[in-house]
């Protein structure tokens, strides 16, 4: 599906275990490979990350599962250690 890159900005990012990560601030493009390498995500869920001196994270494009009204990424237990929802 083709889309304008500005349509992604402000979209909510959730993991596939329905945990909110944050909002898309920006996209990081690789000029050489002509691909989107990362999405820069800000306005982070404070339960997930200890925000000490940084405002956002970069999410690799390859862990994105789907994009619709929101963006769904793969859920890594190691990435979100403070969440107690895992079984």
């Amino acid at each position, binding site marked *: *599906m*083709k*889309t*304008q*890159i*500005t349509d992604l900005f402000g979209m909510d990012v959730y993991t596939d275990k329905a945990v909110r990560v944050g909002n898309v*601030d*920006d*996209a*990081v*493009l*690789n*000029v*050489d490979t*002509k*691909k*989107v*390498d*990362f999405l*820069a995500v800000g306005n982070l869920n404070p339960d997930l990350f200890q925000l000490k001196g940084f405002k956002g994270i970069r999410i690799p*494009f*390859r862990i*994105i599962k789907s*994009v619709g009204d929101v963006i769904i990424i793969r859920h890594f237990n190691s990435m979100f250690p403070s969440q107690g929802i895992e079984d």
Partner: protein
Amino acid sequence: MKNVFSRNLSKKQVMSTDGMVIGTIRNIMIDLDTGNVESLVVRPEQGFDTGGYKVDGERLFIPFEAVRDIKDYIVVDRYLSKE
């Protein structure tokens, strides 16, 4: 390996390799399935001859393959940027 933030590109001018300013970048089209950057959406300069380019109303599309480098300007190949 060169990475750029897409917001850094906004308002940048697009220049052809023959030294002509084509216009100002408006947006970028990406393919969400593959992650490929497909094309640049450019608003042409006043009086720019858009002949040979892919145009939709006020918008001019330049395939991202044509992009040579991005610094102060976005430099695109004069032949690859046309259809």
